[in-house]
Every structure is written in C-alpha cells, then in structure tokens.
C-alpha cells in the first residue's frame, strides 16, 4: 500500500524535476520533506516498479521523428504474450500492448513505431512481419497526422490518495 507521501512524491517527479542544482531538495521544500526522504522514496518507487524510468523524456516530433505508426493486429490469444515479448525487443518499437477486441475494432495487439520517415517505418514493420510471422493476421497501420496534445499524465496528489485507497 502506497503512503500519501509516496503519492505526493510520485506526482511531483512525474510532472518533472526542477532545473536547479538541488532538484530533490527543491521538491522536498514544496512537499515539506527533506532531500534524503525524497531521494529514498523515489528509489523505493523505482524498485517497486511504480516508476518505469526516471530521466530525460524527449519529444519525438521536434527531433525529426515525424513518422509515427500505431500498428494493430488480431492475433490468437494463446500467442499474444510470446508475440508481445518478441516485438518489444526490436529497438524501433516504442510501446507494445494488449487491448481487448471490440466489435468495430477486432484487434488485440498494439505496437508503436516512431521513425523519421514513412518508408523506414514500413520497412521496419516488414521486418517485424517476417521475424514474427505476422502476415497471416489481420492488421491496420495508423500513421499519426496532427498532434493536438502530448504531455505526461497529470496525477494530483489528492486524487492519487483516493486512487490508492479505492
């Protein structure tokens, strides 16, 4: 069970560390904790897997990665874990999820590929198809056009307290 103090720390570090010489001390001042407590709680949250990674979070598009494809397949349920694990190992894959099929959307395996151009992304996709024998399954490729909004999830400490107890 997460304590309210952990949730407060998590909300702050997911929103971003301040650019100053003692960022953890700065967060501590805002939350009424000392620097060591912030650092210890962040380390524990990482160890528990509640922080997947901590570091620089880049924006793909301004850095030239403008071809962004969400690819979905309809694969047999009994194969999905193995396929998901294999797909995730490709360096060009950025996300890989299972989601439930819906009547108007009969796909269960999702992956995201960020590339500099469409040709490269499509070639990478063919490589996935070959290695994982995915060609036999129904598939859709959805390249992104406009990005209307992109930012980290905003978790408010108060809401998180509710979530942790709910």
């Amino acid at each position, binding site marked *: 069970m997460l304590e309210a103090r952990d949730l407060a720390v*998590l909300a702050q*570090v*997911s929103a*971003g*560390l301040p*650019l*100053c*010489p*003692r960022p*953890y*001390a700065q967060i501590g001042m805002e939350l009424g904790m000392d620097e060591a407590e912030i650092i210890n709680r*962040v*380390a524990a949250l990482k160890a528990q*897997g*509640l922080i*997947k*990674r*901590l570091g*620089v*979070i*880049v*924006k*793909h598009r301004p*850095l*030239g990665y403008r071809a*962004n494809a*969400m690819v979905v397949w309809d694969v047999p349920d009994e194969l*999905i874990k193995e396929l*998901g*694990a294999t*797909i*995730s190992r490709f360096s060009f*894959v*950025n*996300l890989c*999820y*299972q*989601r*439930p099929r*819906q009547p108007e*959307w009969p796909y269960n395996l999702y992956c995201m590929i*960020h590339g*500099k151009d469409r040709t490269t992304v499509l070639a990478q996709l063919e490589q996935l198809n070959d290695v994982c024998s995915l060609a036999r399954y129904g598939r*859709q490729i959805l*390249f*992104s*056009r*406009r990005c*209307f*909004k992109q*930012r980290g*999830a*905003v*978790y408010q400490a108060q*809401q*998180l307290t*509710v*979530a*942790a107890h*709910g």
Partner: protein
Amino acid sequence: MLTDLHKQLLNDFQRDFPLSPTPYRDIADTLGATETDVLAALAELTGQQFISRIGAVIPPNQIGASMLVAMAVPEAELQTVADQISAFPEVNHNYEREHRFNLWFVAVAASAQQLQAVIGRIEQQTGYAALQLPLVDDFFIDLGFKLDWQHA
C-alpha cells in the same frame, strides 16, 4: 543547432537519472562539463521543445486508471472536437491518425469510476461515441528512445 552536449543529454540520460543530491553536477562530471553548462543546455532543450521534461514515467494503470479512446469524427469538425477533448485536464495524449477512427486520445483518472465519468462527459460534449480500448497487458520494457543523429 544541437551541440554534442545537447545530443549526449538527449540520448544518455533517459533512464537511471542520478538519485544523488546533485544529479546535474554528476551528469556534468560524467560528460566533462560544468553543472552550469548542463543546466543551461537542458533549459535550452526544454525551451526548444526537444524535451518534454526530466521526470518519471509511470506504468499505466498501476496508479489510477487510464483508457485509450478512438473516435470517428468528420474531417471538417476534427479540429473543434480535438480542441474540446484536449481541454480536459484528464487527457494527456490526443492525436489525429489516418483511419476512419481518426482521433485517438488517452484519458487518466484516479479511479475507473471517475474515468468513465470523464469519458461520458467527453461523449456528451462532442456528440461522438468513444471506442474504449483499455489496457490488458503491457509487454514493453521502457528503456528510453535511442535517437539517431544522422539526417537529424
């Protein structure tokens, strides 16, 4: 123009950010730069929109609830509907994609119940049905994104 320092900061510190009292000085020491240089370069990268933040990535659905939602919106109304959806603080990603389902967004809330309430409000405001695609399993281990500087 990106300097070598910018490029190293972008690529080499996407994970395992130092958990010491002076993380930026530690990074500077690794790179043979000064703490002031590192802080200035990170501020530039943030200002130029190359970095969203230096922070934590939280796995979906460990805390609170999240939902991927797709909508099929006529092209002429897409910008208006997208703006309405982006205005919700619970929405953190919102993209146009090439498909009949052309608007894709992610909403997060503290609980499944609150999440459904938000999605209900979005449907009501926009007048379009939300195709809800919750997460079942996450296969991806996030090690950051390896940037390739050729043609950058």
